[in-house]
């Protein structure tokens, strides 16, 4: 399966996937004007990964700012991960943030509220 390696821009995060290890990595800001379009490749990758194997999936996030349309897309992805988790898949999200910026932790916390899989919000000095 094709992995993604999307470089970051001022308004879009770096996105990398590793289907062999079962890892998604995202880092940076996300405020594209058309988030649905920007994230379509990642959304397809996730669906494809979940449909073609039963291995665990770890999502490593170092996201800082998300505009509301990016939040909407991320919620759709987390919903899909939640469904997979409900069907017995091992899912983990690790969201790292700078302890100076509690807004990022609050954002992560609101996503976590709707997820029952392991969702770790990790403050870093």
């Amino acid at each position, binding site marked *: 399966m094709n992995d993604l390696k999307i470089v970051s821009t*001022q*308004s879009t995060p770096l996105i990398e996937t590793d289907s062999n290890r079962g890892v998604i990595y995202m880092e940076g800001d996300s*405020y594209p*004007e058309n988030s*649905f379009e920007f994230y379509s490749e990642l959304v397809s990758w996730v669906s494809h990964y979940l449909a073609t194997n039963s291995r665990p999936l770890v999502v490593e996030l170092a996201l*800082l*700012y998300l*505009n*509301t*349309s990016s*939040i*909407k897309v991320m*919620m759709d992805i987390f919903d899909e991960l939640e469904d997979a988790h409900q069907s017995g898949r091992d899912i983990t999200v690790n969201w790292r943030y*700078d302890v*100076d*910026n*509690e*807004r*990022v932790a609050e954002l992560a916390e*609101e996503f976590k509220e709707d997820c029952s899989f392991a969702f770790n919000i990790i403050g870093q000095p």
Partner: protein
Amino acid sequence: MSVPDLYELRQRFDNERILLCFNGPISRSLIEEIGNALRNYMKTEQASPVATLDVFAVYIELTQNIRHYAQTSQLAGADTATVVVSYRDGHYNVSAGNLVRIEDGEAVLKQITALAQLDKTELKKAYKEQLRKPRDEQATTGAGLGLIDIARKASAPVMSSLKTLENGTGYFSLSVQI
């Protein structure tokens, strides 16, 4: 040709503690560049990372709403935005204005007034409900999620006004205290 009185303009900026002002057709790249300048400025002024992120977030939602409106409404001149960021009495203020069809402006005014009645817990509930709405339903309500997000980041009720102009249009302004 007369020389514009820039000193008078600058005095007004100084008096109103305006740290950033933009007036003109707004593009995706301008939104990014101005946003970047805003973040850097706040960093140099040693604003807290939380305040910087809140101001930036409100700025992005407001300007992207204007771009989105200009694209969907196809109203001539709607992509010309006026954006002002100021710092007064210990608070940052982000304001933005644009040309709208009067009925669209009235609809947003109604939304802002309704949101102003809600406390933080109710706003969070409204936000989560809006987030769960199907995408096409979101599209019909326009800037729903963005406006709730802005209201959640504001430290006082969001202020808005609509000035009637000619040909069924109006100038819509919105001001957010962080």
